[in-house]
């Protein structure tokens, strides 16, 4: 089992995507929108909070217009740095602006069965299996609920899913499948049991919560209530905009950023007004609709730009960013999946997004594939290596070594080569075999990735969850009635 998490840190690569003036312009435009157009908050509790802080609330439409200053002051209360705690503290994830972590993608509805190869509806056992594989892989730093447990009752499904992950992994869990205050409270109570009490949970949040905004310029009532409950327990909460250019956002990328920013900022400000100092994060997965059919695309050059640009905004507000990357629209692990997932993840990494979501889903985050999960991890490995950049110093310039080898010599057996050999990236799934070998076997990355996933499933035994704690968690789950 991996007692370590692979992340990107101390990058030598960087990207100039938005100038400081651009960022300011987007910021001012977003505040203007929040002030004069407003954002919809369909939750009585949220509206009360806004009202008590002097924002203008229209009770009929539930649209809130808040002065820019109120938003700015609220955001200043957000901690710039905090840690996503893991049950095994070695696997804690400091969100300090100097790490990029990858999670699993989430809420898939179908699974490509690893044994039969058939596509079928996802069940609780899939959540367990995926969590176990994710627990093993060092590239996966934390979990989202990867697929929905459709064999569990809808009112407590999100809780069964959490338990399934906790039973199979000691890494941090972020839920994106809970969107009611009631379920969020039960989830926080479960996390408190695991952490050893509410105070302990506040110090070491084992769970974080991601909610969606509703573009353009709206929120979902249940999601708002869930976020507020999370913040009450000290769990990091974030709001993710999926503003889609040409349908739920302007066709121009800058306009899309304004809409998404207004939604996320207003959500985070609400949380800070209610619980000053609560850990929050910016989350985004903007996209462009498919112009021919209106479908969700899951990739494309604009999406890749959004990944990097959103991070500039999150940096400006001094809060961590969770960014949608990977999440290809491809239907099987193929050229498109490799292309989209590489570029989206590279761009988000270049801008040092704190959390990237996530590996494993195909077809616009709907179909789980273990093969894709494993191959996505290799993509992240390549990008992590690139982010190290090129170190230039006496030892790496190697002038003396070059002198010793001289014209026409070889570096193959030189001590310097041996010293630095293991710094060179190693492939697991890129096919570098001779053509004739390939021709005979006709296999490749998907086959090897499948074998790897199978062997992890067969052999990896995660640290077990104490049966008494599990009982306690089950008791909380069963308290939720339809």
């Amino acid at each position, binding site marked *: 089992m991996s007692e370590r998490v692979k992340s990107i840190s101390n990058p030598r690569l960087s990207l100039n995507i938005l100038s400081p003036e651009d960022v300011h312009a987007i910021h001012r435009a977003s505040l203007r929108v929040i002030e004069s157009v407003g954002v919809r908050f369909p939750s009585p509790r949220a509206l009360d909070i806004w009202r008590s802080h002097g924002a203008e609330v229209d009770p009929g439409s539930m649209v809130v217009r808040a002065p820019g200053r109120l938003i700015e002051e609220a955001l200043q209360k957000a901690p710039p740095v905090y840690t996503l705690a893991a049950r095994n503290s070695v696997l804690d994830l400091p969100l300090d602006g100097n790490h990029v972590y990858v999670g699993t993608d989430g809420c898939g509805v179908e699974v490509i069965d690893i044994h039969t190869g058939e596509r079928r509806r996802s069940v609780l056992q899939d959540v367990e299996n995926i969590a176990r594989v994710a627990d093993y892989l060092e590239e996966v730093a934390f979990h989202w609920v990867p697929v929905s447990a459709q064999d569990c009752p*809808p009112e407590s*499904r999100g809780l069964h899913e959490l338990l399934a992950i906790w039973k199979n992994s000691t890494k941090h869990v972020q839920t994106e499948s809970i969107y009611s205050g009631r379920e969020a409270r039960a989830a926080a109570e479960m996390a408190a049991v695991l952490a050893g009490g509410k105070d302990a949970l506040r110090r070491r949040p084992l769970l974080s919560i991601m909610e969606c905004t509703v573009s353009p310029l709206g929120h979902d009532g249940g999601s708002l209530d869930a976020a507020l409950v999370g913040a009450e327990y000290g769990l990091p909460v974030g709001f993710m905009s999926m503003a889609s250019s*040409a349908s739920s956002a302007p066709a121009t990328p800058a306009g899309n950023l304004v809409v998404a920013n207004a939604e996320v900022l207003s959500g985070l400000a609400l949380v800070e007004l209610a619980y000053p100092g609560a850990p929050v994060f910016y989350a985004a997965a903007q996209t462009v609709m*498919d*112009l*021919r*059919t*209106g479908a969700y695309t899951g990739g494309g050059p604009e999406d890749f730009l959004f990944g990097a640009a959103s991070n500039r905004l999150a940096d400006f507000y001094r809060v961590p960013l969770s960014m949608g990357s990977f999440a290809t629209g491809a239907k099987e692990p193929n050229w498109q999946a490799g292309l989209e997932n590489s570029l989206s993840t590279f761009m988000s990494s270049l801008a040092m997004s704190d959390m990237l979501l996530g590996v494993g889903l195909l077809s616009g985050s*709907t179909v789980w594939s273990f093969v894709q999960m494993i191959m996505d991890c290799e993509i992240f490995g390549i990008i992590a290596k690139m982010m190290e950049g090129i170190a230039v110093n006496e030892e790496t310039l190697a002038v003396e070594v070059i002198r010793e080898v001289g014209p026409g010599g070889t570096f193959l057996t030189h001590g310097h080569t041996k010293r630095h050999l293991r710094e060179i990236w190693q492939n697991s799934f890129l096919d570098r075999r001779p053509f004739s070998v390939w021709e005979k076997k006709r296999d490749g990355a998907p086959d090897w990735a499948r074998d790897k996933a199978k062997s992890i499933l067969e052999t990896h035994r995660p640290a077990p969850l104490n049966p008494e704690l599990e009982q306690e968690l089950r008791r909380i789950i069963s308290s939720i009635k339809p």
Partner: protein
Amino acid sequence: MKKEELFARIEKAIIEGRKSEAEDLAREAVKAKIDLTEVIEKGYVPGIQKVGDLWEKGDYFLPELITSAECMKAAMAVLQPELDKANIKTKTKGKVVIGTVEGDIHDIGKNLVASMLSANGFDVVDLGADVKLEKFIEKAEETKADFICLSALLTTTMLGQKKAIELLRQKNLYGKFKVLVGGAPANQKWAEEIGADGYAENAMLAVKLAKRLMGA
């Protein structure tokens, strides 16, 4: 303005998606007492058909297609009272009640299905998102609908599609409306399992399905 010139201008307004012009020309046609069936058949319909062709060929994109459909709808609204007065029945392909089921706020896909059905001559009542199941049935009865279209994007809310059909059975209304389902977690098998009349993976296929079920 000559009749032919008016038809050409109507066709152009629809193709270029200019709403107020499409409406103005409708008013002009009424004022000039031109046969309205002819106005529709030779002006508006060829316009929207060309738009459809342009979209099929890939020259037009969805925003253009929907804009033209909305122009068409606006112009028809101008003509409707006159058609009623003259007792001319316009052909509707069928009446549709559509919405996203309760607990679910995803509405982008549902909106698209509604727009495309409406663009293709269906009469559409859109109940919005997060709609109570009873409401679908009430509205369908009230409007004597042919279709109830249930959109659901979540694995939790797709169960609402099943419940709606159970509700129809309880009320002895099963079979009275054709029930169509769609959204990310739904599929053909699910539709069959719950006794729906059809499933479609996107708005264009939904139109085809609805037309087929109407025997058109």
